[in-house]
């Protein structure tokens, strides 16, 4: 019971927040209820095949295939690969988390994981053309360049700050 409560406390907190906000703003509350149905079907509809694909990837692709390209010793080539992998994605960011977790388990360095997550979130190549079309090339390309600089910086910084223990912690989380 206690374990169960601990596991679900974040969901309970979210329910309380949603409930209070929904009571204070009843119109938004009703809208949220409607959206909840749509969101459940969309998000779970995407996550189910993603988890199956990741499960297949996990059992079929050996660590030795990934670690040399994205691991600790992958250097600049690993960074470039991490940026390209993230940038060529098309899914929402919540899909990137399980993907990154499996990549980490296959020996990708923490730095490249954060670079991958960063470029997945803000440097989508499929979206760039659309962005240029909407807000113009100067806005889009300068945002792109500044994002890239930040992503690389954040990757290096986060790896320095977090190090090996956090890596171990993440890996253990899904071993059970």
């Amino acid at each position, binding site marked *: 019971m206690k374990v169960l409560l601990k596991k679900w406390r*974040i969901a309970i907190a979210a329910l309380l927040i949603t409930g209070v906000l929904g009571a204070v703003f009843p119109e938004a509350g009703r809208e949220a209820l409607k*959206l909840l149905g749509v969101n459940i079907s969309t998000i779970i509809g995407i996550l189910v095949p993603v*988890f199956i694909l990741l499960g*297949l990837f996990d059992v079929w692709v050996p660590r030795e295939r990934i670690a040399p390209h994205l691991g600790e010793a992958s250097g600049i080539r690993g960074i470039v690969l991490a940026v390209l992998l993230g940038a060529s994605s098309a899914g929402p960011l919540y899909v990137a988390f399980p993907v990154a*977790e499996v990549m980490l388990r296959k020996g990708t360095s923490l730095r490249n994981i954060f670079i991958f997550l960063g470029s997945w979130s803000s440097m989508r190549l499929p979206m760039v053309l659309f962005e240029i*079309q909407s807000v113009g090339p*100067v806005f889009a390309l*300068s945002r792109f360049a500044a994002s890239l600089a930040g992503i690389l910086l954040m990757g290096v910084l986060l790896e320095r700050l977090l190090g090996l223990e956090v890596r171990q912690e993440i890996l253990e989380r899904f071993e059970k």
Partner: protein
Amino acid sequence: MERLCRTLMTWFLYLATGVLLGVSAAASPEKTKKALKKALNTFVNILPPLTATLLLVSISVALLPEKVIASLIGEESGFFGQILASLIGSLTLLPGFVAFPMAKVLLEHGAGVAQMAVFVSTLMMVGVATAPLEASFFGWKVTLLRNGMAYFWSFGIGYAVWLAVRIWI
């Protein structure tokens, strides 16, 4: 158009999963069973944080529909406008298909360039509603650090874009 695109992508995702699952099962039922077990295990593991994220996404999008966002970040400019844009960008979720055309219209109506860049950047990189899900994979320490850094860097991006637009346009 946007909806069609997404539906097609989802269909493709299911098709690819089905085909690969079939190939895998033909090659090794044992390994396939293991893969499915892993998938189920991950799903069960993230069910509580996923529930939290679903609730938070729903209420934040309900509280901040496009019209409200547009009216909030279109008017206030300057530093306060940037703070407001960053907070709204962090709290809500909008796909790029919606966000960029909205940014275009707001820019045409006189919204600040820096503020729009901050809004778009936080929208993409910082996710309060998806934080429980992120933390279930990477822990709260990583989640807070990543989101925090991305939040502050968004102001740097805002400045860079503002500078670029000033120089070239």
